[in-house]
């Protein structure tokens, strides 16, 4: 139960924190969940992992739009040999395709070349000259599979494990299970290099049925990462402090009269967090104190890489400041340009050359920077997308969606560097052997964080829920 009149008073009190999405910090989003009383009182108190963790932080690099990993990592000599010819029927056994216009001839860009790099001999294409230098840091997952032929559905599954909204994202589960390592910042942050939030929406960083306090907080590009975070100019800092102190006093009185009203306690905590974030959030994303060499490495001096490089440099700073889960969504390579993302149903060469240029140098810089600062061992970087792309062409010079076989990778955070798990067939249509679904990826990420996905549970409507729904298997071959 809660005290309606006090809640109304607080809402009208105007403590100067404006439109900060404080409901996002309320456990239960307004009503009781099955979280324990202690969790509701301090839902973000740090919690120990279930066993020794290899990673403390996850940087989740989502390549929005689904890149063709056949043009980045997956060298297929057989595909090159058969380019321009119809696909042999045997490769289509067991899958249902829906390419507009039907399956056309196999496609290879005439500009594409591949070389092997590092001791691991991993293949990288000409599109990734910088990332290829870090071949031996990466653990490739080359038998990735998922479901869904549309981006929004598959992005939702990538982040939450379900094709329907309502489940918590992976970051929310991590936040729930481990709490916050820095009480002055959100423990789960979403970054993007676009002038609007990622198109698939906030359901992808939602807390679902977990208390709302565990949802991700989207940091906007620019100096002020959270809208309306700053105190209005008409209110002095002392006034804001006095308002918060008054709230605290009221809370003490309320707690004694309504001891079950833990929602109120959590709301007050969210005001305190917002107060602290007025200083800590802008500082976390302020790059002015970074060296020129660092800015250059991340590509901040080149318009092609500036926006994405900025986001990744912020991600590194947030890692240093104890943020647990940093979800980065790639934006358009050229603002207001033709390509909003990697979704190259046509003009793949043009699309991917621009998008690869946008991300290649910054990602390489991030890996090098984390390594140099001694953070790579405890920071798990995951490069992922909602699905891959087909080896057959679409619209003459593009590729269609491919959920049956594509590539992702992990680096750092206890992942097995310089290795490859799984494979696709000779022309890159379907995974062969053991597949890695999104649930398996989630289970493995959680394992690296010291969490057993089968025992990370939350009681919702009398039902025990876990991050991997009813699926998921830790891929031990990916763990060092």
């Amino acid at each position, binding site marked *: 139960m809660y005290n309606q009149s006090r809640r109304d008073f607080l809402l009208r009190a105007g403590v100067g924190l404006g439109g900060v999405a404080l409901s996002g910090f309320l456990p239960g989003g307004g009503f009781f969940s099955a979280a324990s009383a202690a969790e509701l009182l301090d839902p973000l108190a740090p919690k120990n992992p279930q066993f020794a963790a290899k990673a403390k932080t996850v940087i989740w690099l989502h390549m929005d739009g689904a890149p063709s990993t056949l043009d980045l990592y997956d060298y297929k000599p057989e595909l090159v040999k058969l380019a321009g010819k119809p696909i042999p029927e045997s490769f289509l056994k*067991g*899958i*249902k395709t*829906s390419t507009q216009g039907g399956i056309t001839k196999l496609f290879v860009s005439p500009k594409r070349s591949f070389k092997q790099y590092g001791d691991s001999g991993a293949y990288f294409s000409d599109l990734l000259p910088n990332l290829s230098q870090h071949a031996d840091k990466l653990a490739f997952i080359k038998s990735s599979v998922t479901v869904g032929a549309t981006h929004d559905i598959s992005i939702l599954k990538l982040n939450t494990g379900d094709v329907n909204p309502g489940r918590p994202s992976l970051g929310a589960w991590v936040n729930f299970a481990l709490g916050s390592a820095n009480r002055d910042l959100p423990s789960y942050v979403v970054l993007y290099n676009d002038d609007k939030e990622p198109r698939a929406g906030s359901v992808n960083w939602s807390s679902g049925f977990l208390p709302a306090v565990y949802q991700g907080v989207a940091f906007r590009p620019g100096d002020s990462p959270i809208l309306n975070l700053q105190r209005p100019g008409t209110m002095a800092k002392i006034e804001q402090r006095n308002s918060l102190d008054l709230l605290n006093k009221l809370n003490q009185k309320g707690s004694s009269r309504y001891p079950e009203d833990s929602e109120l306690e959590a709301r007050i905590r969210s005001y305190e967090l917002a107060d602290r974030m007025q200083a800590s959030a802008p500082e976390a994303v302020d790059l002015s104190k970074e060296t020129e060499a660092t800015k250059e490495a991340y590509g901040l001096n080149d318009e092609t890489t500036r926006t994405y490089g900025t986001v990744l440099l912020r991600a590194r700073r947030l890692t240093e400041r104890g943020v647990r889960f940093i979800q980065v969504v790639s934006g358009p390579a050229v603002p207001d340009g033709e390509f909003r993302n990697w979704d190259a149903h046509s003009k793949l060469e043009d699309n991917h050359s621009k998008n690869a240029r946008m991300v290649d140098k910054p990602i390489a810089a991030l890996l090098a920077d984390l390594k140099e600062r001694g953070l790579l061992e405890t920071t798990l970087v995951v490069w992922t997308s909602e699905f891959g792309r087909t080896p057959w062409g679409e619209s003459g010079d593009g590729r269609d969606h491919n959920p049956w076989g594509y590539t992702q990778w992990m680096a750092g955070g206890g992942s097995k560097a310089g290795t490859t798990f799984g494979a696709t067939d000779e022309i890159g249509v379907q995974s062969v052997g053991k597949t890695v*679904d999104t649930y398996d990826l989630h289970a493995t990420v959680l394992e690296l964080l010291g969490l057993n996905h*089968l025992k990370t*549970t939350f*009681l919702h409507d009398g*039902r*025990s*829920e*876990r991050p*991997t*729904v*009813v*699926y*998921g*298997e830790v891929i031990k071959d990916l763990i060092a």
Partner: protein
Amino acid sequence: MGTIRMRKLMLFFAFLTITGSVAAITLDEDYMQSMEDRQKSLSANIGIQNAKGANEDAKAMMEMFADVSDYYVQKGNAQDAVDWSNKSRELGSVIIKYLAVKDFDNATVSATTMAKTCKDCHRLYKKDK
């Protein structure tokens, strides 16, 4: 004449018996949805260590997988679907054994394998919406 009539009657009853025991099985979206719901219930009940509830779910799943197996046997040319269904039935039986000794950890693992087996079959046989 009496003997011929008796034979005809016997054949007629034999026919009724045979057709009565091979009822047509329909696997529609509702049926599959109820299987999925039951699967989630199983996983959830194991999660909260409700052995009784999980037992009921496991038994129900075994019956459902028997139906699925029969369906694909009748359909023909779907041996992999038959195999997956039978594998899932066995997993149901294994889960019940684990529940009997309150080994919820292994019951969870088996339930997860069962769910993955469902997905394997769906990849080939689930109709797109």
